[in-house]
């Protein structure tokens, strides 16, 4: 058991280190906080790692433990050496510059940690002791991972039933390949062990959220807002369900907030980070390519036209995005994979009036997101009257959130692609962290409370 735990920790630590070195190299002015780098490292590291494995898998190579370790070793060598050479080699565990906490902060922090510990423990117990039950977990994500793990390669024969692992083979392989790695590193397929991934991403998202909030805000305020995110019922529920929606939400959150911060502080590293995490969102779920990429494209074009970004920056942004996810995009294009999960050969507009009442109830009145979306609706109505043209960061964030909300929910209400409401809350889950972040920004902007 101890050996298993050590192997599992190593399975997470090595890709985390890859992501951490990558972030340190990117952060040329050292502006990313240690906390941010700590929590962002794993999502970035796993994304880079699984993309490399995918590339190697396409060549027909056996996905053995040795291969995985070699890839990681080369990554660590190159990135570690580069970080060392650029003198950006610093550990996140240096506590010499700690934030002073007031009594209220300490109490709130203690409460928050207790609540989080309870939630995380309960979720871990659930994942480790109860078999996979949810449909997409055993029919898609875990199935593909298990097939690839068992075959020790990515099945590339289209005529076979388990092409790309079976399941919904139009979906990217980021999640399944990560699970293959964890199973390989721990020595066997144990679905509880591999599915801890969702919980780890939940923790990463919470940490990222806290560290993405303005650092001059009071710790107590940041803690309350972070608690609000952590306690979203549907988001927490997905921490112990082996789906990829929480991972996708994390990448999307990183991408949008990084671009927001770039527009606020003109720090190029944020722009590159936004591009990189957008590519990883595309590498995680099809919505990244079908929904998010078009929104980000529109946003970058608009920012270019209004002079907030230069042509070079936009070009660089999309170059990074496309380059990072090019293998997958090329592969899906050559092999004519569907754009969404079902048949995307035809697409027509239709008003699904029978969905409207349930849609409204699900999004605004039920407990999925507490009353988050109602608050967003109310504040949006107020915000639109107070828009400051020159606050490009805030305007971008608002526009991105609204557009994504309208697109996601519009597909459900106004197209023939939604056969029922099964995807509704999961797509709103993708943008829920952004909604909480946006709420925090708007309340600060309106000076309703003193955050500082």
């Amino acid at each position: 058991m101890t050996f298993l735990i050590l192997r599992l920790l190593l399975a997470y630590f090595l890709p985390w280190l890859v992501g951490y070195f990558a972030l340190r190299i990117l952060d040329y002015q050292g502006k990313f906080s240690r906390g941010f780098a700590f929590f962002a490292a794993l999502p970035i590291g796993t994304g880079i790692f699984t993309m490399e494995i995918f590339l190697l898998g396409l060549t027909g190579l056996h996905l053995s433990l040795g291969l995985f370790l070699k890839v990681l070793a080369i990554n660590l060598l190159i990135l570690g050496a580069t970080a060392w050479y650029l003198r950006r080699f610093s550990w996140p565990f240096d506590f010499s510059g700690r934030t002073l906490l007031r009594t209220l902060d300490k109490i709130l922090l203690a409460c928050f940690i207790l609540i989080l510990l309870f939630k995380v423990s309960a979720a871990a117990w659930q994942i480790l002791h109860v078999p996979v039950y949810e449909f997409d977990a055993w029919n898609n994500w875990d199935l593909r991972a298990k097939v690839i793990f068992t075959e020790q390669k990515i099945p590339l024969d289209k005529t076979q039933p388990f092409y790309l692992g079976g399941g919904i083979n139009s979906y990217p392989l980021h999640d399944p390949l990560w699970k293959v790695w964890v199973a390989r590193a721990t020595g066997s397929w144990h679905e509880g062990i591999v599915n801890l991934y969702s919980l780890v991403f939940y923790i990463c998202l919470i940490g990222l959220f806290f560290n993405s909030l303005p650092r001059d805000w009071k710790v107590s305020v940041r803690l309350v807002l972070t608690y609000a995110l952590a306690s979203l019922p549907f988001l927490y529920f997905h921490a112990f369900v082996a789906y990829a929606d929480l991972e996708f939400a994390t990448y999307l959150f990183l991408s949008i907030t990084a671009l927001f911060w770039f527009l606020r502080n003109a720090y190029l590293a944020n722009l590159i980070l936004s591009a990189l995490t957008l590519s990883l969102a595309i590498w995680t779920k099809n919505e990244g390519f079908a929904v998010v990429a078009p929104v980000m494209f529109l946003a970058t074009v608009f920012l270019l036209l209004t002079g907030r970004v230069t042509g070079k920056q936009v070009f660089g942004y999309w170059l990074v995005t496309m380059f990072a996810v090019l293998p997958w995009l090329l592969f899906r294009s050559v092999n004519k994979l569907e754009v969404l999960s079902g048949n995307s050969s035809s697409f027509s507009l239709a008003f699904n009036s029978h969905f409207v009442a349930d849609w409204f109830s699900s999004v605004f009145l039920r407990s999925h997101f507490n009353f988050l979306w109602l608050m967003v609706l109310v504040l949006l109505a107020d915000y639109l009257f107070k828009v400051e043209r020159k606050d490009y960061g805030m305007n971008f964030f608002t526009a991105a959130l609204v557009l994504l909300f309208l697109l996601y929910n519009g597909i459900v209400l106004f197209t023939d692609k939604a056969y029922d409401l099964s995807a509704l809350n999961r797509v709103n889950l993708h943008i829920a962290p952004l909604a909480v972040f946006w709420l925090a920004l708007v309340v600060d902007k309106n000076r309703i409370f003193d955050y500082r």
Partner: protein
Amino acid sequence: MCSGSGCRITANYATLPRWRRGFDSLHPLLEHKPEAVRKRIVFVLTFSAILLGAAIPCSSLAVERQQILLDSQTLLPGWQVVTENEKTSVVRTDQGYLLKNFGATTFIYNGEFGYRDYDRLIISLQNSDAVALRIIPNVTTTANYTFENEQTVAASDGVQTVAFSLHYPNFQQVENFGIKFLTSGPANILIQEITLSQSSWAKKLLQPLKDYLRVAPYSGFTVNIFPAPRIFGRSAFVYFLPLFLMLVAALFYSSRFKHKALLGLLVLWLVTDARMGYEFLSYQIADYQTWIAAPQGQKTLRTYGDFYTFIDWLKETLPENTGSVNFHTANQAHFPRLAQYYLYPILVNPPSAAAVYIVYRQPKLIYNHQDQRLYLDDKPVSDPGVITFYDQDSFIFARR
């Protein structure tokens, strides 16, 4: 606006738009003579409470209006019994009606009413085995029931009373309703009494809380939509909406009450978090009881019964070198695909028929001990083979 000591004019009050003065206009009123106004408010509230108390007859707090539909002495006309199994029987006894149940039996009552007439259904019964009760409004037409219309009753030696609230949209007005008795195996159920009743005020006040705390069963769709919490069959937050809107308005448009409004919103948020935390914990407790702590042979998981136990049995029992299997079940359409995930690399239902059959709860596929073949609808569908039973309807059959 006011003068003298003790008055405080809200800064910039005069410059506020008219509609915004509404909240802040409380300030001058309260601050001019706070003590006198408070006393008036207390007096009005107390007087209203007395009036209200006097208006409600004391009897309504204790006695509920009711109609006995069925007991050992009474059987109102309009009852029908529909059963899925011809072995099921219903016999009148001195204590009530004895239902010898095999599978599912529905007692249908034909009578028009709505929840404003009767908002509770009470069933007194004694059952030898666990029985799932389901109340189905308009059972002969729409049969639209929800999880609030279902309860599972454990086996008991004595009589137990089960109460169902009917204060839900699907019982607003019904022409008939059904009471479905579901048991996993043969069971004796003595139905002593079935009564419709109108709750007292005390029970009416308590019902929203009971509804709010009621946990929806974990189904395959829970990963997409949470049906709970609900009050009277509607999303619970609908009833909190006026409070929410007031708090939001106070938060953004009242400088005096904004901190209290924020606190109110935080409390509201915490209430939902606590409620949903309770729901998730309930799922885990249920999983622990049915899957972890249950003895081998009795483990079940949510809506899939003992299928996971069956899968574990298959992994241990399937012949070595099994490459593919034909999977047959009369249950969930998902089961072959779920089996495929757990049994991979063994192929389930390959394009060409496999030599091994897996049968899970498919009573139509029968093994003939004499010629050692499988039969479907009295026709042989396989060559002779060897059978290993999981239970009477579930087995592995391997062709020789």
